[in-house]
């Protein structure tokens, strides 16, 4: 090949280089979808074959097909409970944003407040929130409120910390620049500081949504009469392991769905190239 190839013009080289890049990229895109599906299918197949071959009883580890049947049989119940849990998650998460972001703002704007609230915040996180759940049942009964509050309590901490850290971490030159250009405090905040903090804020929001799911389920464990967490308890009590797995599938779908929702919001608010460049924020908590 090499000896008979004439000298390629630079345009030919360009075209071939670009083509191979396009090929590589489309291959990468396809494999990003294809590979996980293959792996999942393989895991399910091994699981199915293994449980059948070794005769594992269904109450210990049901094969995927049995879980699917259980899911199909209890479809409307799972759907109804998913909605109940989603509501708790969304309310708890919204509350953690509504409380967390202004709190972070106050921490950033008013150092004495930061100094007085930080020890409280940190110790509130050291306290296991699962342990507070029974107390919330006593205070707020068995309804929606205690679940929402537990989801809120678990979720709001990363929002506060990441927002406060994001607002605080900025090159001093950017602030000098804003002042010399004549921006006031409000304009500096909205034009420079807030956009600068967005990657960090979304980092907190993404962690918080997964924690809100945990919080809602914990609330349902302790005292619920509906929801996927309640379904898990019921299935567990009646040794209906396939139903328990069906509940887990529902929770997983919920968790991934909410996470993706936040990612979509992030992609709308923050350009791709600056996303995650503020990853250092995590270490400072």
């Amino acid at each position, binding site marked *: 090949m090499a000896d008979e190839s004439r000298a390629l013009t630079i345009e030919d080289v360009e075209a071939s280089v670009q083509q191979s890049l396009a090929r590589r990229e489309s291959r990468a895109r396809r494999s990003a979808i294809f590979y996980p599906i293959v792996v999942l299918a393989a895991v399910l197949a091994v699981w199915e074959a293994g449980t059948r071959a070794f005769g594992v009883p269904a109450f210990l580890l049901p094969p995927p097909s049995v879980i699917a049947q259980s899911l199909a049989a209890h479809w409307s119940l799972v759907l109804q409970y998913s909605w109940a849990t989603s509501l708790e998650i969304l309310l708890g998460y919204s509350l953690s944003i509504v409380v967390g972001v202004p709190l972070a703002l106050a921490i950033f704007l008013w150092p004495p407040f930061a100094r007085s609230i930080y020890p409280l915040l940190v110790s509130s996180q050291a306290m296991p929130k699962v342990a507070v759940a029974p107390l919330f049942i006593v205070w707020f009964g068995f309804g929606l409120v205690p679940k929402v509050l537990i989801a809120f309590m678990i979720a709001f901490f990363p929002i506060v910390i990441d927002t406060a850290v994001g607002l605080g971490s900025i*090159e001093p*030159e*950017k602030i*000098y*620049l*804003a*002042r*010399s*250009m*004549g*921006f006031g405090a409000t*304009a500096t905040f909205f*034009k*420079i500081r807030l*956009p*600068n903090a967005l990657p960090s804020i979304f980092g907190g929001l993404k962690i918080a949504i997964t924690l809100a799911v945990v919080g809602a389920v914990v609330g349902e464990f302790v005292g619920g009469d509906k929801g996927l967490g309640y379904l898990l308890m019921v299935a567990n009590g009646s040794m209906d392991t396939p139903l328990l797995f069906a509940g887990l599938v529902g929770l997983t779908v919920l968790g991934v769905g909410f996470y993706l929702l936040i990612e979509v919001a992030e992609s709308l608010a*923050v*350009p791709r*190239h*600056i996303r995650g*460049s503020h990853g250092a924020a995590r270490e400072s908590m």
Partner: protein
Amino acid sequence: MTDLGLARAAARASGAADQDYLRVDNLSKVYATRDGPVRALDQVSLKARRGEFLTILGPSGCGKSTLLMIASGLIPASSGVVFVEGQVVDKPRTDIGIVFQSAVLLEWRTALGNVMLQAEAKKLDHAVAERRARELLASVGLAGFEDKYPHELSGGMRQRVSICRALVHNPRQLLMDEPFGALDALTRDQLVLDLQKLWNETRMTVLFITHSVAEAVFLSDRVVVMTPRPGKIDRVIDIDLPRPRTLAMRETQRFADYNREILDLFLARGVLREH
């Protein structure tokens, strides 16, 4: 603050007699640290004429950046006063353009968007400012890059955007803090030429901070050489070379003489050592 009061009175007394655009009077800056006070500037006085290209040249840590920050009103002096057109500088000056060593661009804005930030701050007419911004970007070779984001630009391009941002509102003075310090030698040469061209067109007052002797001699009307820490003024050198200056001029005897004079100063002060 009595210092400031006296200075104000003096300024009123002298009235419009002050011919200098910028006057720095006995400026000192001391930073308090845990290890004791650090002297950044020790009684520095200097004047800049309107339309003058004035360079502060000195080794790292001689307080020249501090001087620029005080002259722009961004940080307060420990003692002494800065006057601009006879007025005491006691708050950030918004009639200037500043260029830092790093480009300090907003990553979420395009090149044009970054330049337009200045226009937004000044509430300039958008269409007029955008035309001016595009012209400026084109004049430093960034035509076609207006819609690129900072991460898509090279270091030299980013600094050019930063210079355009500092110029889009036709500032009274341009202050530059080692603007080319982080760039490679070739890009530096080009940007120095670009800057000279921009200055020739506008003849605005420039306060330029650098530690590059060649850069200082090439660009300036006058070079203020600083001593190492604490920063004092060592010598003020008039650069009497015809304009516009060319790269070839750097090989001339006169250019070399200016270089030599400054290097000798640095050797005498122990900034440089020939072993």
